């Protein structure tokens, strides 16, 4: 692989990892709320979280572009007060991949939490544990495997993201070009062989990650 290809793969892996790490605490919190609590407007939140999974990725990307562009409510604020941009930068890639992989993480984590017997949490309570202690010593450890599997799935989704990424971050070689975007560009230019090389890399990565995720699920079931 050439230096450029290595840079693209490395960039994609880094951004996908960062995006997954960032959505992890937020996704776990939302998943727990959806699994264990009922509140007014819960179904709205459920729907919003599921939207990026169901909407066309470019549509999600368009929404993000409008929000995060220099004239958008959030992007404008950041540009004026902090002087940084999200659109056309690696941050845009991260936001796009985070948005698209978030629902996958929440879905998996929610199922993991729902699989924890609430009786165990109740007993922990009778033994004097605070809500935080119950969560960190009982709920989270028992849901951990499912959450990790969900994180791996979210990571692999982030690796392969295209539609939202190209909308929000553009396709700038060396700056925001991920593996998927690069394959697209190479095909446009007629460089099919290079495109194929990257395609294989992306398949191998996806295979390893999903396989790892399956292993985690299976270990959880056996335990």
């Amino acid at each position, binding site marked *: 692989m050439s230096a450029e290809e290595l840079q693209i793969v490395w960039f994609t892996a880094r951004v996908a990892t960062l995006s997954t790490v960032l959505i992890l605490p937020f996704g776990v919190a939302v998943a727990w709320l959806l699994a264990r609590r009922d509140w007014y407007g819960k179904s709205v939140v459920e729907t919003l979280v599921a939207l990026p999974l169901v909407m066309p990725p470019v549509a999600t990307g368009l929404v993000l572009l409008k929000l995060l562009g220099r004239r958008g409510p959030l992007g404008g604020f950041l540009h004026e007060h902090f002087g940084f941009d999200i659109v056309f930068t690696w941050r845009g890639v991260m936001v796009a991949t985070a948005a698209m992989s978030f629902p996958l993480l929440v879905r998996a984590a929610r199922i993991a939490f729902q699989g924890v*017997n609430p*009786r*165990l949490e*109740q*007993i*922990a*309570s*009778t*033994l*004097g*544990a*605070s809500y935080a202690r119950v969560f960190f*010593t*009982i709920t989270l*450890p*028992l849901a951990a495997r499912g959450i990790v599997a969900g994180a791996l799935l979210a990571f692999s989704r982030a690796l392969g993201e295209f539609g939202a990424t190209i909308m929000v971050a553009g396709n700038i070689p060396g700056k925001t070009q991920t593996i998927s975007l690069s394959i697209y560009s190479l095909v446009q230019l007629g460089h099919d062989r290079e495109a194929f090389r990257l395609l294989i890399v992306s398949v191998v990565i996806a295979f390893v990650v999903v396989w790892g995720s399956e292993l985690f699920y299976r270990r959880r079931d056996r*335990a």
Partner: protein
Amino acid sequence: MNLRLQNVRLPLAHFALELDAEFTGQVAAVFGSSGAGKTSVLDLIAGLRHPQSARIELDGRALTDTARGVCVPTRQRGIGYVPQDGALFPHLSVRHNLHYGAPRHGEGGGKSKFGHVLDVLEIGDLVNRRPQSLSGGEKQRVALARALLSSPRLLLLDEPLAALDQPLKLKIMPYLQRVRDEFRVPMIYVTHNANEVMALCDEVLVIEQGKQIRHGAPGDLFTVSDDPQFVLRNGR
């Protein structure tokens, strides 16, 4: 013990649980057939369920008082709970399960109490095992020990022997009696088995379809025989 359940009302699936009773014995039974609402009584006392209305008082201190908006959180009630299946934490060893509710400070007293409880329930050689590898009887004893080690003011037991076969029931019952006699912790014991009531309890509350129909000493309410039957004096 000194446990008061006043004007308790909790709507359940098919009927409402309504109670008004005061427990003064050492071990009080809540007796009734399956689905009578017995587990819900324990959940209310432990603060795991919230009644429509109730005033629940333990040793003079109000745990729940819907009229005044009082509801002490479960973790502050100091009430131990041994549920039907033991509910041991599967990801922790027996030792860590046992230590979960024990107070951190006071190592000296802690260690000897730890040893004492393990002796009484004879679970000393189980401490390094995992809950999944324990038998039904072993799980119940560990669950009981775990609750005892949190130094509860009241112990709730939800049909602890229900899942065990008759020989095992006969084997475990002495442990319960030992707990009663050695640790002198007041207990509320839920069961549908009259034998257990006769063997362990000095007070029994009979409920059916959520309503209490009798409250008194087991001897007054059960005919004594090899297979005790609950018989209502003066008919229904």
